[in-house]
């Protein structure tokens, strides 16, 4: 069996928000509270969920932008969460990132050429000065920008073009995995389509793996292989794309899918409108974290936390309903409209 490119095991990240130094009971934000998943080479895994569910924190933990509270981040068999400085340097080349806001993630005082040359030089990828320029030129080709634009500054580009520069910069290090943290969310519809297509083309061409963090389910469905759904710091469902969109096995996923407005006027839908708001991650509910908003919650949900369990077709979900006989499981009822 081939080894996955990235393995995340029981990842936890808690932030202390009070107490500690001068006494008092410390309290924590349980931003990510035990998340495990894998990403294969050349695969897109999408991490979806609402604001505050911890999806970006997972992305940043994978990038090792901070130390994690506990758990493991393993790249190609090598643990990265406690890696030495040298090992981390090599790791940084293999895992790159594209952030949401193309306006704040490029240095306004650097020309595009220097932005792209920096990672190439940093990781010693170019054999000569001529090779460096050639690599910069090829990156511009790859992301569909004219080569002569390397002499310009970021502010001379539109939002979509800037996001292309961010992608080119990520590609400059010749990574194997790119974490896209809401990489297309800030873009307009028509430009978003351009960037989504670009990411798909590049992935196919270079065999890249993507960890695609997004709240836009329609975009996710369009470009992902597998989907992981997060709620309050936990994964509630992980499944191949089609299985998840056709037969969601967690009530939260089901509600999330039904809440997306469809660009199809008059479409008959069986909408599940969740009541209330997402509880605070400082004091997450006991038992299943979703039970306060779940339309199907019963006694067991309030006391016992469900574990992720697999159903045929690598379809993982964490819900007690699947222990009931099929006839009593409301999730298996056909989606009537």
């Amino acid at each position, binding site marked *: 069996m081939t080894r996955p490119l990235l393995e995340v095991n029981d990842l936890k990240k808690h932030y202390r928000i009070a107490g500690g130094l001068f006494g008092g009971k410390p309290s924590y934000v349980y931003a990510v509270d035990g998340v495990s998943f894998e990403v294969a080479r050349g695969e897109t895994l999408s991490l979806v969920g609402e604001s505050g569910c911890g999806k970006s924190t997972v992305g940043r933990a994978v990038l090792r932008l901070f130390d994690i509270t506990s758990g493991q981040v393993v790249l190609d068999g090598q643990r990265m969460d406690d890696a030495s400085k040298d090992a981390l340097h090599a790791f940084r080349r293999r895992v790159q990132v594209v952030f949401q806001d193309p306006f704040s993630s490029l240095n306004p005082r650097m020309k595009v050429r220097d932005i792209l040359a920096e990672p190439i030089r940093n990781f010693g990828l170019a054999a000569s000065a001529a090779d460096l320029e050639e690599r910069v030129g090829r990156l511009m080709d790859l992301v569909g920008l004219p080569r002569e634009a390397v002499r310009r500054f970021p502010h001379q580009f539109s939002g979509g073009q800037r996001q292309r520069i961010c992608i080119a910069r990520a590609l400059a290090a010749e990574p194997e995995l790119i974490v896209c943290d809401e990489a297309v969310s800030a873009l307009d519809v028509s430009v978003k*389509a351009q960037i989504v297509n670009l990411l798909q083309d590049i992935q196919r061409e270079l065999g890249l793996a993507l960890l695609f963090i997004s709240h836009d389910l329609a975009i996710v469905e369009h*470009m992902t292989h597998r989907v992981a759904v997060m709620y309050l710091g936990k994964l509630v469902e992980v499944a191949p*794309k089609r299985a998840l969109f056709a037969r969601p096995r967690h009530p939260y996923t089901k509600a999330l899918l039904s809440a997306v407005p469809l660009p199809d006027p008059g479409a008959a839908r069986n909408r599940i409108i969740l009541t209330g708001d997402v509880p605070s991650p400082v004091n997450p509910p006991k038992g299943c974290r979703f039970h306060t908003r779940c339309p199907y919650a019963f006694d067991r949900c309030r006391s016992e936390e469900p574990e992720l369990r697999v159903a045929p077709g690598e379809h993982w979900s964490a819900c007690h309903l699947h222990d009931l006989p099929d006839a009593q499981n409301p999730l298996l009822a056909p989606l009537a409209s």
Partner: protein
Amino acid sequence: MALLEVENLQVHFRTPVGVNRAVDGVSFHVNEGETLAIVGESGCGKSVTSMSLLRLIPEPPGKIAGAIRFGGKDLLALSEKEMRAIRGNDISMIFQEPMTSLNPVLTVGRQIGETLRLHQGLDAKAAEDKAVEMLTLVGIPAPARRVREYPHQLSGGMRQRVMIAIALACNPKLLIADEPTTALDVTIQAQILDLMRDLKQRVGAAIVLITHDLGVVAEVAERVMVMYAGRKVEEAPVRELFANPRHPYTQGLLGAVPKLGSSLTQESSRLAEIPGQVPSLTRPIVGCVFAGRCAIATDICRAYAPALEPKGPRHAAACHYALKEAAAA
């Protein structure tokens, strides 16, 4: 007569690099009790249009020309004092950011009551009672307690409900909603859209909904107007627009949005792209505003701006080539 008639609206801003023609000759109307959606991408002028309806554009650097007739009165001819009597009373507005558009140092009750005391002359007690009633209407639990809370004690969805309560407090005839759900999560967005639909039936106000989300348009609008680079390029009833888009820009926009459930019915395909960028509005645009990005543009498009022409029942588009019957290729 329509409730609101906008004729040849022009909103220009003086900037250091030239005059920005944010809105350049837009006409439309809204009937009583109707929901009109204005759709377009950033910079198309949809928000500027909505703000100019209430004369919220600072002048200078802005300059509004044309006519905005509300119930027969030209709003552009009114004094600032007369205008204040209309804002929040006959016409009210919901903004995108429920975090920044509420005053953080006043209780929500005070903020709902403010419009009532100003426009309907209620005293503090009566205003608070009415505020509780409004909070009940917008579905906030424990309204008698919430009315004395401050915005930071409420979640994003609840703050947007408070915004809606403020907007509806004086029974406006027209409600302008500028991206009311864009800052919210999908499950909360579903709650708010549901609330808006429900309230519309009960209150009967006409709504001008500004959005970039075609899904939201499909769910709440009755009629849709598509804007591009400061001009109106197409207008039609909502079903007609989604079924038979005539303008190449509208067609491109609809093709660029992936549909939820698409992976179940078809193999993964590429999204339709609209190549290029939105043109700069600081230079005068000769010809059709969309010609630079349009696949079917010809020399005629680059030389002459197309007029808005009827392309079917209540359907109009500004394109030299949009066919009268079947959708253009």
